[in-house]
């Protein structure tokens, strides 16, 4: 038996297979019939892609029909190519090339010959189509933008590439797929599910009905409509203010973590990436390596945070118990440490305690406070790690996890990082070596959205919701990730003096000239040094202008971070823009028209041209 078993199994299998094959091939005639009819044509029924609305129900993105000219090469008969080319406005060479390509792909399967006709082209072609055997029209739905803004938030749709088609069997050649932004992240919800019909054809390629009475057919499922958290008016206003500048604005609703506006500049009109002009337009945007309009600065640009970072250092010091809000520190036009080294400061009254320390943005105050927080621990390593943990609880130093398709982690240095750059343990390092962190000018990097989220956490006195762009899906809950409070490691009682300090920034401090009548704002200016490389040499550029704020102080409705590249000091560009955005959102109209006019009439293009000019230039004018 042990010898025979496998023999028996092999022979039995052979007999069963031959029996089954005999049945399939010789006895059952229906298969031969089915195949002789040559078979089955697959027709896809594309559902409407879901609409996108803003937080107030304003329609941002809808659909428009578009028509692709398709051909099945084996059915194409000789036709009047001159007329065809004239109607559809293409060159004969292009037509021949397209048809050859289609033939190589498959003579029996449809290929797109001309994508995305306009309505009028379609109407004209429709009339003449009977002259062109083997061609037909496939209707698709394209995006129709009701807004000229928020291109980087919305994303776009484009034909599925070869890689995606190979990876995901849902998509076939010619399908449109969401890319970037909301279109990309919520692709599966927006697109719905396409329906399939299997149609039986006879030998002459005539339709003779549904294959197997339609048991394999499916109906299309409509895409879901989405509401996003963006306020379209505020977004449009933000983009207008950022014209001729580079940088980002992120405004959040602190109570929910909803993104009210997400501006990156320069940007582009989303309508550029629709239809037949999509490809050349995209190429133009893609290769603009200087302004980089496809680069989402509010999500991806990692800048040193500058002085707004002082607020968080104050909070850490209070939480660690190394300072009280009333304790004063002297500023001698700067802070002296080590052997004759000095961190400069600007003129203001001295000594200062915490509230005026923030209001006047005193570097010496924060150098003292930061040092104490680090030196509280026996080794600088432990000190830095504790400090870094506090920062991380504010969502800094790692991907925020928002539902936007791109992002950057920023950077929060820890002990390992300093050990490696200072070659520990061969050489030792101390808190003073990391002192630039005290004023947000050291190794720390943040993206504008991280900074806005940090501001929201301060406004909320110690917690935040992960910033998100999706407000509502038709018939579904939004992800739990965005409805769970995240707590910072700072107790809520420590936020009072810091918020008061930020309030004083507007009353008596660095933003006193930017007050908005009738709105109590808490804010913080920032000015960050930055460098670039020109011909391999490190060159300093004009400082970045930074501002964070939230308002109203008592009941925060909006938290905002503004970053203007090379805008010089914080109050100059970023502070003005933040104030205008807050007033626009809370009041709907602008009373500081002087500020608005200043922003709209000032351009930084000249500043951006400097490093490209190849000539020596002066910064910070």
């Amino acid at each position, binding site marked *: 038996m042990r010898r025979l078993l496998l023999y028996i199994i092999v*022979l039995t*299998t052979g007999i069963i297979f031959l029996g089954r094959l005999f049945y*399939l*091939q010789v006895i*059952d005639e229906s298969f031969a019939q089915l195949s002789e009819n040559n078979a089955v044509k697959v027709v896809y029924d594309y559902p409407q892609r879901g609409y996108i609305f803003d937080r107030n129900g304003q329609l941002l993105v809808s659909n428009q029909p578009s028509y692709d000219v398709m051909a099945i090469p084996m059915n194409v008969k000789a036709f009047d190519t001159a007329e065809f080319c004239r109607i559809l406005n293409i060159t004969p060479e292009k037509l021949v090339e397209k048809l050859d390509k289609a*033939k190589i792909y498959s003579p*029996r399967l449809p290929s797109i010959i001309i994508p995305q006709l306009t309505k009028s082209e379609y109407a004209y072609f429709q009339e003449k189509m009977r002259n062109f055997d083997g061609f037909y029209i496939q209707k698709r739905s394209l995006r129709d933008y009701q807004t000229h803004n928020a291109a980087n938030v919305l994303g776009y749709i484009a034909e599925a590439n070869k890689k995606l088609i190979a990876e995901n069997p849902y998509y076939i050649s010619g399908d449109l797929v969401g890319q970037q932004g909301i279109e990309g992240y919520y692709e599966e919800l927006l697109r719905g599910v396409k329906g399939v019909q299997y149609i039986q054809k006879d030998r002459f390629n005539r339709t003779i009905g549904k294959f197997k009475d339609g048991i*394999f057919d499916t109906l299309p499922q409509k895409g879901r409509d989405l509401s996003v958290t963006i306020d379209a008016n505020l977004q449009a206003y933000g983009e207008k203010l950022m014209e001729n500048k580079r940088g980002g604005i992120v405004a959040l609703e602190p109570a929910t973590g909803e993104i009210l506006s997400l501006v990156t500049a320069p940007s582009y009109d989303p309508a550029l990436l629709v239809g037949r002009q999509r490809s050349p337009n995209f190429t133009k945007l893609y290769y603009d390596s200087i302004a980089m309009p496809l680069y989402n600065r509010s999500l991806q640009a990692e800048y040193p945070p500058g002085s707004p970072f002082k607020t968080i250092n104050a909070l850490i010091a209070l939480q660690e118990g190394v300072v009280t809000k009333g304790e004063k520190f002297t500023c001698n036009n700067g802070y002296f440490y080590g052997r004759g080294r000095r961190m400069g400061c600007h003129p203001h009254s001295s000594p200062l305690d915490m509230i005026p320390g923030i209001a006047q943005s005193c570097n010496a105050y924060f150098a003292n406070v930061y040092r104490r927080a680090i030196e509280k621990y026996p080794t600088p390593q432990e000190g830095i790690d504790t400090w870094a943990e506090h920062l991380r609880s504010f969502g800094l130093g790692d991907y925020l996890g928002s539902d936007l398709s791109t992002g950057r982690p920023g950077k929060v240095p820890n002990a390992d990082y300093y050990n490696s750059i200072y070659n520990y343990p061969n050489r030792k390092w101390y808190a003073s070596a990391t002192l630039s962190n005290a004023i947000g000018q050291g190794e720390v990097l943040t993206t504008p959205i991280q900074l806005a989220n940090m501001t929201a956490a301060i406004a909320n006195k110690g917690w935040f919701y992960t910033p998100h762009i999706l407000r509502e899906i038709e018939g579904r809950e939004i992800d739990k990730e965005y409805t769970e409070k995240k707590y910072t490691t700072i107790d809520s009682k420590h936020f009072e003096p810091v918020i008061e300090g930020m309030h004083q920034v507007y009353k008596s401090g660095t933003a006193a000239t930017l007050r908005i009548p009738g709105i109590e704002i808490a804010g913080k200016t920032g000015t960050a040094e930055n460098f670039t490389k020109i011909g391999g040499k490190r060159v300093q550029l004009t400082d970045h202008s930074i501002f964070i704020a939230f308002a109203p102080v008592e009941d925060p409705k909006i938290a905002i971070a503004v970053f203007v590249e090379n805008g010089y000091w914080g109050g100059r560009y970023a502070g003005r823009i933040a104030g205008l955005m807050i007033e626009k959102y809370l009041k709907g109209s602008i009373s500081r028209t002087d500020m608005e006019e200043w922003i709209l009439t000032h351009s930084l293009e000249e500043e951006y041209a400097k490093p490209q000019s190849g000539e020596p230039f002066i910064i910070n004018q």
Partner: protein
Amino acid sequence: MPKSTVNFDWTTIFIYLLLVVFGWVNIYSASLGDSTSSIFDFGEIYGKQGIWILLSIVLVIITLAIDSRFYQRFSSVIYIFALLSLVGLFVFGKTIAGQTAWYVFGGVSIQPAEFVKAATALAMAKFLSGIQTNLNLFKHQLQAFLIIGLPIVLVLMQPDPGSAMVYFAFFFPLYREGLHYAYLLLGFLAIVLFVGTLLVGPLWMIPAVLVLSLTLFIANRKKRPSLIKYFFTAIVAIGFSLSVNYVFENVFKQHHRDRFNIVLGQEVDARGIGFNTNQSEIAIGSGGWIGKGWTEGTQTKGKFVPEQHTDYIFSTVGEEWGFFGSFVVIALFVLLLIRILHLAERQKSTFNRVYGYSLAGIIFMHFFVNIGMVIGIFPTVGIPLPFFSYGGSGLWGFTLLLFIFIKLDAERMSFW
């Protein structure tokens, strides 16, 4: 060496050649584009396969040139290297269509799992040929299962359940060398219970198991069977049956469930998977007695059958060569398997016999699962048809597996 060359089993080599050549002929048809080009066009699938086939001649020569004692002596080392090659995939491997199963060198992708089968066969042969090895000892049974289990786990992690399934082939040599038949019976019963439960549900399977146990118990009552054993077995069977539902609904993925349901006729698939099997059946069924002729298959040319040049290559045979062609291919495989079993039985060394049985088992599993799938009597499991399907790693893996045995057989006398 001169003595052994005359002893090569030319029958096996001849069948191998027929399968490889006929396989290429069908791959050519299934992958034929519309532009005519040289048969060694590297850009075309049939051109690539042609190169692989030519290169496998080199592989054959090397395999036959190595002293057969090498395979025996270094089997453990080869096995360990093979396992490492699977582990390495998770670091250096490339993920294609969801499976981390490939190393890519330049434009060439290699699937190490195809070579691991041969290494496992060598390791198993080495283990079972040990003088101490006694398959009645639980400890040795465990060791044997470990040899099979390691590659299974690594292959499952890719994940490639089809290739993992092939390792059940090693139960054949184990059974041949004295493993208790209960293991085979248990495996068989598990399959019957599994399929049965899915077909009619546990509500019917439980009484069926109880009635069957009772009948067996009464039929055997003269042998004074132990009631407890019967009772225990029935309870385990019922427990298994109940767990099948759970596993099916919660562990299997939707596409696995669909594949089972289609074959079991439980539901008509609406997502297009059933459509594929259906198209494959139409292709084969439309072949008739003698087929539509080479490169004349309308189903094949219309690209109706998915993956036709790889896993579904047999549907091209059925359509273009008809029942006649299918018969020849089935017959060739049956003959090859019987020839290998015959050769295995005439070996004097346990090592050679176990290796031969492993070889037969592996080829059989591929043959059974692949053709069963293509003709619609087995769920869709993506494994290739040996020597036939497109794919360099597969072809080389099987060539290596087979020719090591031919070499072992050729030198079977020189050991003693």
